[in-house]
């Protein structure tokens, strides 16, 4: 089991965010390699500014032809993998691709035909998004489940001007991104919740944009828990209360949005509201025989809105 903390496992808390915004083709990013994608390019979306950490390294999505085309290779700046420079490739096998084009959004499938997402593509259709880095997403404009030839690639480099004209949302809500733990028993902890809000009652929102992470098998479930922790010395931490207990991320084909967007209220005035000088959140992949692993390097947004 791995207990992870700090970037790139989790970003710092920020008191601002950006609206989820689709970039126009080759605006705010430079298309480097688009293979088949030149006629039906990927849409690039941003909702945060972490892409500024690397404006030189190419992001690459490589497709594999099949009855349902699959993605078995994603390349992205290594800063989002292990904090280093350069580019890192994430791969998966035939049986468990990183995503599979389909007619529904599930923990294994990626809906390009009849998406239920609220995001609209550049061709005016509902578009499911994949988060490739904190606050950076892509979606397919092609609506076929098998349009690609072997090794069709789409590659781009981000530009700082992607943020031009975007409003910074500063409404009292704090935001961070963390990588979903990939193996049962793994945990990720956030940075310390800012002192200005840590001792107030607060609402914790998980996955506000309803993005669908992908897992590596078709087994039953993947249980994630969220616990608030306290400390008096920033070194020794205790679990104060488990806010969300073993939520099972279930397919959205059943319109089960609740398991993809979770919220919990922390009431600092309640009897179980043990207070500490320092607080943080712990995200845990519950250890159980029936749990299945997620694919690595999938970032999820967490928001805290204080009372």
């Amino acid at each position, binding site marked *: 089991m791995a207990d992870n903390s700090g970037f790139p496992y989790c970003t710092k808390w920020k008191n601002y965010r950006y609206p989820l915004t689709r970039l126009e083709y080759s605006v705010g990013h430079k298309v480097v390699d688009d293979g088949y994608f030149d006629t039906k390019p990927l849409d690039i979306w941003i909702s945060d500014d972490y892409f500024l950490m690397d404006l030189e390294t190419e992001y690459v999505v490589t497709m594999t032809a099949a009855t349902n085309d699959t993605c078995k290779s994603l390349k992205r700046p290594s800063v989002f993998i292990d904090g280093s420079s350069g580019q890192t490739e994430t791969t998966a096998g035939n049986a468990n691709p990183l995503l599979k084009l389909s007619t529904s959004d599930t923990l294994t499938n990626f809906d390009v035909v009849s998406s239920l997402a609220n995001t609209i593509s550049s061709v005016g259709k509902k578009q499911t998004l994949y988060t490739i880095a904190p606050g950076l997403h892509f979606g397919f404009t092609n609506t076929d489940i098998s349009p690609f030839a072997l090794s069709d690639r789409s590659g781009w480099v981000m530009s700082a001007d992607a943020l031009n004209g975007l409003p910074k949302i500063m409404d009292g809500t704090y935001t961070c991104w963390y990588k979903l733990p990939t193996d049962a028993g793994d945990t990720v902890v956030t940075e310390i919740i800012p002192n200005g809000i840590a001792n107030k009652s607060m*609402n914790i929102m998980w996955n506000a944009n309803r993005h669908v992470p992908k897992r590596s098998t078709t087994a039953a479930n993947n249980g994630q828990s969220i616990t608030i922790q306290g400390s008096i010395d920033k070194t020794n931490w205790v679990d104060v209360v488990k806010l969300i207990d073993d939520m099972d991320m279930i397919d959205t084909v059943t319109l089960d949005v609740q398991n993809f967007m*979770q919220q919990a209220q922390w009431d600092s005035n309640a009897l179980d509201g043990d207070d500490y000088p320092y607080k943080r959140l712990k995200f845990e992949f519950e250890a159980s025989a029936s749990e299945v692993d997620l694919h690595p390097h999938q970032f999820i947004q967490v928001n805290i809105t204080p009372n």
Partner: protein
Amino acid sequence: MAAEGKSTKWGRIADLSTTPVYAGFTAGMLDAGAGANIIPGGTINGQGTIGTMGHFCVFRHDGGTEADWTEPFDFPINGDFTIAINSSGEDLSASTTMDVSVQGSVDGTNYVDLHTDLIDGVVIDETVVAGVYDYDAKGRMPYMRLELTAGTVSTAENILIHVIPH
């Protein structure tokens, strides 16, 4: 009928007593969020209008049993608030029961329940039904709205909903 927004924006006129303020709003004006540009007014009696600490909207109960919702609150939530459903006590055409949940969102698009079924299966025909949202226990989010789900089918008609911050 699909789940969708079915209300006007929130208004805050005090005197709603004479001409029913909910009258005149058709399905086309309110379905699918069309009411997002409509602010309902109250009675103007020649002496000006009176504002109130409460907020109200006209909600179109469309006769279905799917979940529909109001426009998001356009006023701050800094404490508990009272919700009143069918707040003018209208005589509806059926003994409609209603579930009311308070929902929140970070982006104004994707909502989750902050308090599920705060009002749970209560008959609203000829009755004002009220519930209180516990701010300390349930919190707030950047966007908030009410979700209403009728348990029994009624005909399409409009009702008033009030939210009164404490």
